[in-house]
């Protein structure tokens, strides 16, 4: 790759800044409390290293921060809530200030949650901040994950951190489920009831699992305290531990950066931790916390008082889990009943088991192993610190969108009843359509995404070779019209041409001297197939010689107009057209 010039025009501009800095930093000796601490900890050694640590800037890097900060808000408000919440299923008669439920028998958990909402001053606010922060936490985790995926930030050396993140996102969902089940209202109780059904669907051990988890028959009095210790102790401990490792690895690897002028795979360009990142990231914590508090002030979330206490007999229409469990609930709505069968009197609930107990582990395993699959296909053992623009990795981007489309179908299925009511459609038609879409949407999404990525890459080439469209139309003396294209600056151009364009691997030594398949070749045949799948359609970035050729053509106006664009893209354009042809054959 290229290196940065030692002397740049920018340095002249910065000369003034540096002088000002030196002038300001009249150094003081380390004393007082800081000195006392350093005598005992020796922390000063690390301070200069940490303070100078550089973080690159991009809006999408804030997604992970949102996740981190909303998790901290959850930990903080969650600690508050434990002061008043009573994790007990003991039945009591409500005598609090919420009139409609006075005299009703309910669990202590529900009574204390009503107490937090009505009798503890500011309690409702803390409860709503906790719930909103949890919802935003899981959204931010997923969107952050998508950012990391689509930019290829999971590549070496960050695979371990991707796996950590994968586990964190699964834990976030389970933590959320455990949390919203605690108030023991009718809605969350119905969720636990369904969970009992999911557990019972496990072949062989399902009934025993159910009795283990509920400490006897459903619902029993054990599930609330057990979920409580899972929610406030077990999962948070793992979450915080893994999250710390996640952040430490970001420090260790140094943050990835988007390609740009002056940014290479061997440097990191950005602002230092002290003071800019402390101010920006620290300030962003307050922004996230503040926005969550503002939302919680005006938008009610989970009005448990409206549902009433849990009772297995009544039910509300539109019973749905919190959004992040929606896709699993949707899977259960789509799985047709005929999948259940019996052998020798034993029941195989294949209408429930795959959607309830298999889906989550399976989905997260696929996500977790993806970096290793892609690394195997590309055979690429290099470190990658420059992010991919999603268009420059068309197959990966298309795989990601295909996966998301599958997720969205399941997510929509969880709202099939609401869609039916709001849109005045038949719930049966909606469900059938979504069943079909579950299989049809991913390949369609894959194909469309890949085509869009390749088109964007071609557009990038056009832009590099012919410049940016200015919107200015010139009329020539002979009556011709021409739009003026402005050439890109080297900085603008660099972003569009800096990427590698991988080519498919091909088998060479398929057979040894005796015509026998070499063992490597047999193993590698599959890999070659995958490689073709990934990199068969490629648009190479424009090169200086192509740009040169394009310039020559532009100088000769007549030729450019007669031949159109195709005439002025010699080598690579031909290759590109072949790719297009190949696409048509495959399509």
């Amino acid at each position, binding site marked *: 790759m290229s*290196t940065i010039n030692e002397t740049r025009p920018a340095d002249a501009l910065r000369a003034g*800044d540096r002088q000002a800095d030196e002038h300001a930093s009249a150094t003081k000796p380390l004393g007082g409390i800081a000195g006392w601490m350093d005598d005992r900890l020796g922390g000063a050694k690390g301070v200069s290293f940490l303070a100078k640590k550089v973080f690159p800037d991009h809006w999408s890097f804030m997604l992970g921060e949102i996740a981190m900060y909303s998790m901290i808000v959850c930990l903080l408000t969650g600690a508050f809530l434990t002061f008043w919440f009573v994790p007990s299923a003991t*039945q009591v008669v409500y005598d609090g200030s919420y009139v409609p439920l006075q005299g009703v028998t309910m669990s202590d958990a529900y009574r204390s949650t009503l107490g937090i909402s009505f009798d503890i001053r500011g309690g*409702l*606010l803390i409860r709503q*901040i906790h719930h909103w922060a949890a919802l935003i936490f899981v959204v931010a985790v997923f969107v952050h994950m998508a950012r990391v995926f689509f930019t290829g930030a999971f590549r070496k050396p960050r695979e371990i951190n991707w796996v950590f993140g994968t586990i964190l996102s699964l834990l976030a969902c389970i933590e959320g489920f455990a949390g919203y089940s605690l108030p023991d209202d009718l809605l969350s109780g*119905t969720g636990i*009831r369904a969970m*009992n*059904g*999911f557990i019972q669907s496990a*072949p062989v051990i*399902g*009934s025993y699992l159910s*009795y*283990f*988890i509920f400490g*006897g*028959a459903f*619902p029993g009095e054990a599930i609330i305290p057990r979920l409580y210790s899972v929610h406030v102790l077990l999962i948070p401990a793992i979450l915080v531990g893994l999250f710390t490792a996640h952040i430490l690895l970001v420090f260790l690897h140094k943050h990835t950066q988007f390609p740009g*002028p002056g940014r290479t*795979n061997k440097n990191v*360009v950005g602002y230092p931790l002290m003071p*800019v990142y402390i*101010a*920006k990231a620290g*300030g*962003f914590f*307050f922004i*996230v916390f*503040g*926005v969550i508090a503002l939302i*919680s*002030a*005006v*938008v009610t979330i989970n009005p448990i008082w409206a549902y009433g206490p849990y*009772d*297995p*007999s009544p039910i509300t229409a539109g*019973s749905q889990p919190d959004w992040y469990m929606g896709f699993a609930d949707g899977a259960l709505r789509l799985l047709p*009943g005929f999948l*259940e069968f*019996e052998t020798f009197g034993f*029941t195989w*609930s294949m209408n429930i088991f795959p959607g*309830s107990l298999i889906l989550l582990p399976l989905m997260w395993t696929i996500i977790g192993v993806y970096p290793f699959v892609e690394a195997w296909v590309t055979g*690429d053992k*290099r*470190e990658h610190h420059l992010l991919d623009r999603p268009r420059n990795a068309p197959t990966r981007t298309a795989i990601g969108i295909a996966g998301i489309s599958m997720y969205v179908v399941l997510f929509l299925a969880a709202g099939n*009843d609401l869609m039916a009511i709001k849109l005045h459609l038949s719930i049966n038609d909606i*469900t059938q359509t979504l069943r079909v879409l579950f299989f049809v949407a991913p390949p369609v999404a894959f194909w469309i995404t890949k085509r869009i990525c390749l088109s964007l890459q071609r557009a990038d080439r056009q832009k590099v070779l012919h410049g940016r469209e200015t919107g200015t139309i010139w009329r020539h003396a002979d009556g011709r019209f021409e739009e003026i294209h402005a050439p890109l600056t080297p*900085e603008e151009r*660099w972003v569009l*041409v*800096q990427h590698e364009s991988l080519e498919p691997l091909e*088998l060479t030594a*398929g057979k040894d001297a005796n015509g026998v398949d*070499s063992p490597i070749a047999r193993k*590698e045949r599959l890999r070659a197939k995958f490689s073709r799948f990934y990199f068969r359609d490629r648009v190479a970035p424009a090169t*200086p010689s192509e740009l040169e050729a394009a310039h020559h053509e532009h100088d000769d106006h007549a030729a450019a107009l007669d031949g159109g664009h195709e005439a002025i893209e010699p080598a690579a354009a031909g290759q590109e057209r072949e790719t297009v042809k190949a696409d048509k054959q495959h399509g």
Partner: protein
Amino acid sequence: MNDHETTDHGKSTALVPASSDGHDLLPASLITGVDQFENPGLPPHIHRAADDDPAAAKRAERQVATLFGLSMLATLVFVVSYFAVPDEATFFLPGVGLTKTQNVVLGLSLGFSIFLIGIGAVHWAKTLMSDEEIVEERHEQASTAEQRAKAVAVVSEGVGSTQLPRRPVLKYSLGGALGLFILPLGLQVAGSLGPTNIEELKHTIWDPKDNGGKPIRLMRDPEMTPIRFDEVTSGSVFHVMPETLQKYIDEGKHVLEAKAKAAVILIRLDPDLIKVQKAKDWGVDGVVAYSKICTHVGCAVGLYEQQTHHLLCPCHQSTFDLTEDCAVIFGPAKRALPQLKITVDDAGYLVAPAGFAEPVGPSFWERAR
């Protein structure tokens, strides 16, 4: 370092890129460095208004200080309204509806007191702190060959001094002990989480044995009053619990466990609509009772569509047809809702003489055994 980068990838000898020139994977152009654009280096640094103009810097300072000041004001509002706003006050918030005043005032003041600190800090960073980007070099993550060799040497020396390689008995006995010590802990948790009573899953309190062998009256849920046959008018729906539940309510124990399997829905249809003879026989003149616990995952099948005579489960939309003995006509459930046989006793009340003929609720492994 550079050599490492370009040669250590793709150890495979059998695979090369399509347009191979001996290097695997990298397009030729990237390796040779020929015909490839140069990284133009960092763009010129553009000064901001506050960098050059003291007035702009002063303005930025004032803006930041104002934001922090407003935050303090919001904090003050929170403290005052914590004591001043009464607990029961409500008001109409446009777009939201009737809201608890305290929650809105406390939330907005807390939100702004926090939010404005953040906005102030970010504005400060963006206008006054240096916006000069700094370049930090990266280094290969892997340790050098010498460091690796040294690590291997240190570890093997340590392992060697334990004598493990020479004394396999130690290795296997330690492995066995470590492998097994988890067992007691796991056994304690798994063994004590129970108790298990799988047969209980097949039993409901509709069993006449729970009532001294006498038929069990159908009671309204939650009033627990008996239902007279002549009160069940055509098209009406009753949510029903067994008379035997009263004992649990009185004792205040295991009420929900009993209800979780005993919930029944009672509906009167035109008898001619019922297509299955058994369903007709187990009912009384078109009055039929079915388990209300969904055979999918156990939600209450609470929605009755009077026109179509369908029962719909609101959790996953399994649909059961009352005219077809509650067979599944749509959705993820497989089995029909179990029917509860009912008759009318001498006093004219509806009773269940025999309990359910099969386990109610969601499927489980041993259900049909």
